[in-house]
């Protein structure tokens, strides 16, 4: 029995469940799998966090180093986000430079952090045009069971909230916490046939028609959006996704704050 037939059977089964408002692991459509956030897990990093959403697990390490600013923003620190879909995490990941999945992941996380103005980069200038703090957010996927975007984003945010700028090692006074502005949260919704559900597990992700990720800030405003996969939404469905993301982002923000 070929893989395609299996996935066809799985597709129908999940569609039927979704139509009834439920899911293969018993969750409701607007329910996340269990979330665990561990901060400061890597002492060689200036900030770090390991986040699991169900069986999906992502480790993010933040390194902070001195470097040159971009010529067009001489007074502003630099944020660099990189994702490695290392083959340890999934039989489908391959060694080598980031492919388009890894690049999209890094860019969607980066967009949420950047557009949500999470880091106050203006405060990271040391000598205008010459030296600024560079923040490297490195996303290391450890176990891939769906919804990498939310897990990677949440881990990045958690790591940033416990990051300290290593000023003392440079003879520049005491270390200080990374200056942060706000905590926009990214939530991902997929559509399976006509049902919309948050936090897709791998099986759901595989057969989803279309995906929408939104970064929502504390005021319920939208900071970033990314539609993915080869499907479509109606305007009405987009409105529905916004509502779902607004509700879930509040919950996730509380989990992050209490972690």
């Amino acid at each position: 029995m070929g893989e395609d037939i299996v996935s066809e059977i799985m597709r129908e089964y999940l569609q039927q469940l979704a139509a009834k408002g439920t899911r293969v692991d018993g969750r409701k459509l607007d329910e996340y799998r269990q979330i665990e956030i561990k901060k400061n897990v890597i002492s060689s990093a200036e900030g770090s966090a390991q986040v699991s959403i169900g069986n999906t697990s992502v480790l993010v390490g933040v390194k902070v180093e001195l470097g040159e600013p971009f010529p067009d923003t001489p007074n502003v620190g630099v944020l660099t986000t990189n994702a490695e879909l290392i083959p340890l995490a999934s039989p489908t990941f391959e060694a080598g430079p980031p492919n388009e999945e890894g690049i999209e992941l890094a860019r969607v996380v980066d967009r949420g952090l950047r557009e949500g103005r999470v880091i106050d980069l203006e405060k990271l200038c040391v000598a205008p045009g010459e030296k600024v703090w560079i923040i490297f957010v490195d996303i290391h996927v450890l176990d891939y069971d769906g919804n990498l975007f939310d897990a990677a984003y949440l881990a990045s945010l958690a790591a940033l909230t416990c990051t300290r700028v290593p000023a003392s090692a440079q003879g520049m006074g005491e270390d200080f916490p990374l200056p942060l502005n706000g905590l926009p949260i990214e939530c991902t919704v997929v559509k399976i046939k006509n049902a919309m559900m948050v936090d897709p597990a791998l099986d759901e992700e595989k057969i989803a028609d279309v995906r929408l990720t939104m970064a929502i800030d504390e005021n319920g405003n939208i900071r970033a959006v990314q539609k993915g996969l080869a499907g479509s939404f109606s305007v009405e469905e987009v409105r529905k996704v916004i509502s779902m993301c607004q509700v879930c982002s509040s919950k996730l923000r509380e989990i992050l704050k209490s972690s």
Partner: protein
Amino acid sequence: MSGIGMENKPKLVDENGRRIDGRKLDELRPIRIEAGVLKRADGSAYVEWGENKVLAAVYGPREAKPKHIQNPARAIVQCRYNMAPFSVSERKRPGPDRRSVEISKITGEVFENVLFLEMFPRASVDIFIEVLQANAGTRCAGITAASVALADAGIPMADLVPACAAGKIDGQIALDLKKEEDNYGEADLPVAIIPRTKEIVLLQMDGNMSQSEFETALNMAIDACMKIYELQKEALKNKYKGEQEVEREEVQTPKQEQR
């Protein structure tokens, strides 16, 4: 979008609701579409959109290579969005950067919605988008051009796909941001739709919008897409007319005297 480097921000909307180039808030830049501009490609189109100049070519359906990327059930869509080194003010190094890889990915996903891929198992439909001159909005111009190129190639398609962005500048929702508006504005929301069904097939956003602003912008973009749809159809009609005229001429003049 990220609010950095705003000290030099110009006024983007004047007291009369006019923008830096004199446009009204819901006004598109001038758009010119030409179909069938290349000889070697199976289909092609050229789009001038404000100061953007974008060329799209389509090859296929043709055998997907290497073999291991073939799908025995359907054709795959491969898209390459590329910026010419001289298309931006500071020379871009040749080859794909992370932004190009992401845009290539989501552009390919857009066209999976309208192509009858099951008709061509093991094949590939290859879409090449070359940005020759860039001034904000190149991904929408690229999708608009690629749609026309696909039609020009005679590839079976459910509908053309027009694309357009709306955004927020000086606190107001505005259509089709140009470069300065994008740099100093508050949000940008590129959208592509299937006109017949109004399905949304591209949706991205970065910046800061309330839910109601988002919905206003989304609808404004969709309305603009419908106008661009007319321009796309016009371009294809002109191509067809042109061909008939050439055919008529060809009957009258032997080939070698045409030059």
